[in-house]
């Protein structure tokens, strides 16, 4: 797996940037949230990738075996927290979208700007 070198990271960075792009370039408020989700999920992948040890196994102790290499548990813990934060943000963002739709009658950014004037 070491053979992959940095390639793995680069693909993940590409994924991140696809999400980031959707987030900042699109005018649809729901699409932005989807973009945010992809962006964040990809960051999670980056973290988990960093914690992987080639030939390692999930960090759950197995009785009796001694020579087991475990992958690093810390990124897992951090990402568990981050996932929760991510869904919390999405939920709040989506409820804002619902309210914006009720107030402005649209969820397209440019139309909102038009009606707000």
């Amino acid at each position, binding site marked *: 797996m070491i053979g992959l070198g940095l390639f793995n990271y680069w693909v993940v960075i590409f994924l991140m940037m696809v999400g980031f792009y959707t987030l900042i370039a699109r005018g649809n408020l729901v699409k932005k949230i989807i973009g945010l989700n992809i962006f964040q999920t990809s960051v999670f992948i980056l973290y988990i990738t960093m914690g992987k040890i080639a030939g390692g196994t999930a960090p759950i102790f197995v009785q009796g075996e001694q020579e087991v290499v475990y992958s690093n548990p810390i990124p897992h813990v951090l990402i568990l927290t981050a996932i929760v934060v991510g869904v919390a943000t999405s939920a709040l963002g989506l409820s804002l979208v619902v309210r914006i739709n009720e107030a402005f*009658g649209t969820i397209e950014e440019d139309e909102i700007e038009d009606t707000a004037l």
Partner: protein
Amino acid sequence: MDDRVILRVGAKILIPFILLFALYVQFHGDFGPGGGFQAGVIFAAGFILYALVYGLGTAKRALPPTAVYVCAAAGVLIYAGVGYLTMALGGEFLAYNVLRHDPEHGQELGILLVELGVLVTVFGSMVAIFYAFAGRRKVQT
């Protein structure tokens, strides 16, 4: 609603299993993957399935919104409560060692309790959020 009989029966069979699975995830978290958060999500998912199939009204009668809000708040209180308890027992905040006579059991008990707190909050919050969304009606634009 009659044409959804299969759905309802299916759900009736499925939901107990989902809840059971959630409990398994909760208590198996020490040994395998899983824990309070995942269990809470699954619990909530089971209940949301119920609500989708039987209607929001039925769901709210089964589990009133107030109860859901109390759940969402109670989990945080349970978690922090463990912290206060350890403090009262002379340890640092969330130092589970002091919960029992020997540290290892204290840790186990502490983890169990805080995972319970997580479960309760996650379940409560997820259902509360679901209720909030489902209680909204589409605006004609």
